């Protein structure tokens, strides 16, 4: 079972599961209603046009993730974590900077990246009127998975949804949808997995299933996991980055498994403390 979960071994390019970001910024210009003060009343009629403000979702992000690493991203809401994942999934184009995922630049050809990347987003990305099986079949066709039918069945069994395979997703609970979403993300054997708070909304049993799956596919894969919970992030991560207001507030490798220290690696409690410091003593739940 676990054999089929691994990515196929191919030539070097096909095996590339690294991520490189250099000075990546994402800027939006959004309108803001102009509020003229009384002093400016006389020129208000000229200024009645809506003004635009710059919103830097991400600002000058540098990061490098090697194959086999699990990269944790933590930070408060609105820090830009989801934007970062979207850039990696080629759903957003950065305003500046260079991106290389799985050895390719998305601006030149996003298709190989899309093939290599599995994305678990905030919403499960499932079609409510289709059954679990039909949803998986749809994504199998989209990604050109050769043994889609067999693999979907195997995955459905693995996430313990095979009894509900012919039920419409509309009838699924949040936890069930998330489990199906995980199956969907793993269907095409991606080398890089992007996970946006995958444990959110899962009951303990579902969390176990997810953790089991992640442990199985750990080797040979690269993960970028966004999480609200630092404990969860530290449990898995080999490198942790703290994002706050679009910038990197803190980044460090984590003490490896079995207590093997990497250069510059940091023990979990120290990491947690540094994290809180970096966020200026923000709300407890965020770190």
């Amino acid at each position, binding site marked *: 079972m676990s054999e089929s979960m691994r990515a196929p071994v191919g030539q070097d390019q096909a095996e590339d599961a690294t991520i490189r970001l250099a000075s990546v910024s994402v800027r939006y210009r959004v309108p803001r209603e102009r509020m003229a003060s009384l002093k400016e009343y006389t020129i208000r009629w000229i200024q009645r046009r809506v003004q635009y403000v710059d919103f830097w979702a991400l600002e000058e992000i540098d990061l490098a993730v090697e194959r086999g690493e699990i990269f944790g991203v933590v930070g408060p809401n609105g820090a830009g974590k989801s934007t970062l994942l979207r850039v990696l999934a080629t759903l957003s184009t950065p305003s500046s900077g260079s991106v290389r995922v799985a050895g390719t630049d998305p601006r030149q050809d996003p298709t190989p990246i*899309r*093939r290599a990347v599995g994305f678990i*987003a905030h*919403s499960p*990305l499932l*079609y409510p009127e289709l059954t679990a099986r039909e949803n998986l079949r749809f*994504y199998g*066709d989209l990604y*050109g998975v050769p043994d889609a039918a067999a693999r979907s069945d195997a995955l459905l069994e693995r996430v313990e949804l095979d009894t509900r395979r012919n039920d419409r997703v509309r009838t699924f609970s949040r936890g069930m949808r998330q489990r199906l979403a995980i199956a969907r993300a793993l269907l095409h054997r991606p080398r890089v997995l992007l996970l946006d708070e995958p444990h959110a909304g899962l009951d303990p049993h579902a969390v176990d299933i997810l953790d089991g799956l992640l442990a199985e596919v750990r080797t040979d894969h690269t993960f970028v996991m966004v999480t609200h919970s630092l404990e969860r992030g530290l449990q898995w991560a080999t490198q942790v980055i703290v994002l706050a207001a679009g910038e990197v507030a803190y980044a460090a490798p984590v003490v490896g498994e079995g207590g093997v220290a990497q250069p510059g690696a940091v023990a979990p409690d120290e990491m947690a403390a540094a994290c809180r410091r970096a966020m200026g003593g923000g709300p407890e739940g965020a770190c």
Partner: protein
Amino acid sequence: MARRQFLAILRKDLLTELRTRETLLAMFLFAVLALVVFHYAFDPRGTLDMTPYAGGMLWVVFLFAALLGLNRSFAQEKDEGCLDGLLASPVDRVVVFAAKACANLLFLALVQLLVVPLFTLFFVQHGYAGHAGGIALVVLLADAGIAVLGTLLATLAVNTRARDLLLPIVFLPLVVPLLVAATTATTAIIAEGAGLGAIGGRLLFLGAYDVVFLVAAYGTYDYLLGE
């Protein structure tokens, strides 16, 4: 691979619609009501022969029913946030367009199939002077144009703030040439019994219209769905 993706998206759209039947029902009901309103608007006492105006009325009904259906193209993806799932996959954006346009075409054709008999019953007192097959050809070519242009514009509209409201504003002016050709051809067949020869020019025009906007869609669709 593209074919597999195309069929997958098409199948998904068809399955979803056939299971809920929301849009189809709305389109059909709207068409029927429009026919009723036309009767009371133009011929309340039922004394006039509406055959010369048959083509025009029919296409107005089709056009507005089509607008209802076109809005649906991306509604689901937008509501459920599934658009990301589609865009994060290695599918070529043009394949997405082709599949959505095909789905819209099929839905429109289905509704038309149900509406035409009713329409004949209500307004065409003396039967069709010309061949019904000619009308089928006109409908086919015009539907293709509506599907192509409509899907293209629906993609644009659904990504704006105004969503459903924007589509008629941008769609109707652009579809006028198609409307002119389709209505004149249809009326020619119904009222004057024109054969293929007489409407050949208009059929050619409809075909050219379809091709032109297909090319335009092919060239610009990547940009519409990108970010």
